[in-house]
Structure formats: C-alpha cells, structure tokens
C-alpha cells in the first residue's frame, strides 16, 4: 500500500497559515507603534472615533468628513463620490487593512488633505487606526 504524502501537505498548510498571519498582524502592529512613538502619547480609539465622525472645515466642502466616503459605521462598505464601493475600514471586516505602511501613508496624505486641507498629525493617524482596529 502506498502512503499518502500527508506531511508535506501539513507543513505546507502551516507555512501558508504562518505567512498569512505574519503578513496581516505584524505590519499593522508596527504601523500602530510607529504612529504612537511619533505622537509620544498612548493611542485612543475613542479619540479616533470622534475624529472620524467629526465634520471638518478647510477641505473640499463636498466631503466634510471621513464618514462622507467611509459612512458613519466603518464596519459598513463605503462609496467614493462616483459610486465605487470601498471595502469596510474595520479590520474585523477587511483583515488586510493597514498592513502596508506605504498604502496607509498614501491615503492619509490624500484624504486628510481632501477633508481638512492639511496633513493629519501622527496622533490623529494612530488614533484613527486604533479605532478601525478595535471594531
């Protein structure tokens, strides 16, 4: 009787699983600690929530809030101004969120400028990510 090669399969699964988990949570934790270090204070999901929902001035009046595109509940899918669906920001709904530092910085740069007409501080960025990760 021929034995099925179970061991390589198991090892393969462990390998993919470990890689996937490492690919998701490690970088996000690093991005969060980076902002926390720069801010010099502990991050607050509660402050992040308030910032996310607030109606801002200084940017494009058509999109006065982060929630203009992402909706008031980050567990829901959002929409761009032309109607394209944006996958939920809540990490529990979209596990790949905030695992690519360059992507995160790119969108903070764009969206803070669009909504507030300025850059966001490290504390604001960290608080927002703490909020999205807590949901």
């Amino acid at each position, binding site marked *: 009787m021929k034995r099925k090669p179970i061991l*390589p399969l198991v*090892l393969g699964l462990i*390998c993919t699983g470990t890689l996937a988990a490492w690919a998701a949570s490690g970088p996000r934790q690093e991005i969060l600690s980076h902002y926390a270090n720069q801010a010099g204070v502990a991050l607050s999901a509660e402050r992040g929530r308030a910032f996310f929902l607030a109606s801002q001035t200084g940017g*494009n009046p058509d999109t006065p809030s982060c929630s203009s595109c992402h909706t008031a509940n980050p567990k829901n899918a959002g929409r761009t101004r032309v*109607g394209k669906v944006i996958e939920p920001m809540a990490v529990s709904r979209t596990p790949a969120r905030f695992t690519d530092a360059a992507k995160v910085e*790119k969108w903070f740069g764009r969206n803070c400028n*669009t909504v507030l007409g300025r850059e966001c501080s490290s504390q604001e960025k960290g608080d927002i990510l703490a909020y999205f990760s807590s949901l």
Partner: protein
Amino acid sequence: MIRFPKAATAAAGCLMLAIALPAAGQQTAAELATQECSACHVLYPPSFLPPQSWQRITSTLDQHFGEDASLPEDQAAKIRDYLVAHASSRFPTMSVDQAPLRISELSWFKGEHRRLFERARNDPAIGSISNCGGCHRMDGYYEK
C-alpha cells in the same frame, strides 16, 4: 538518489515563497493604471480623451476633481505614459491647459446620455454619471 528530509524541503519552499512574494510586485503600466485609477472609479478608457487631457490630469493629481489623488512622481509618470500611448488621436490639436478634463462633458457623451445624468444621480445604486459600471458591462465593450 539524494533524499532531502521532508521538513527541510518544506522549510526551504517556505523561505523561497517569502522571498518570491514581494518580488512578484513587478507591475506593467496597464496594471498600475488599473490599480491606482480604479481605487476610486473604473479605469476610464484612455481612448475617450486626447493625449493632452491625460497629461493635464496626471500632472494635477493633487487637485483631482476636488480630491487629492497624488501619487509619487515615478508612478504618475508610468501611468501618464500608458494613458498617452492609448489616447484618442481624433481630437483637434490643443494645448495641455485647454484640454478637456471630464469625459462626461464631451458632446458625444452628453448626446448619448442626455436623459441619464439625472437618473444616475438619483439612483443610489448608480450614484453618478461617472459610475459607468452602474449601467454598462465593464468588459471593454461598454454594452448596456
């Protein structure tokens, strides 16, 4: 035949995968354009606008229809070259500053969609005339 222990083979495979995954990020210009443009909207067909429009659009991404859509210059340039190479040659010559920015303001587009601007705006499932996929099949043929 030399036999490697299975665990060692698997570990080596794992390592190779970890190295190969990031390297797979080499993108063609078409892939980059699709990825970046369609973060917010469908990749509008480059042939709907003249090259000057694409030059104007890709050099003012920080003020993109009221949104900051900036990209690092190397990426913007790669996308610009792609769009310009596939742009329409049927427009009259014009300066970059004068080039149209909105496909939805071209006369043929307005003619074809006359009654549909308002319908698109008022239908929450479509949202705007710029959401081609709200009505059209987006397989390259734009069939309704």
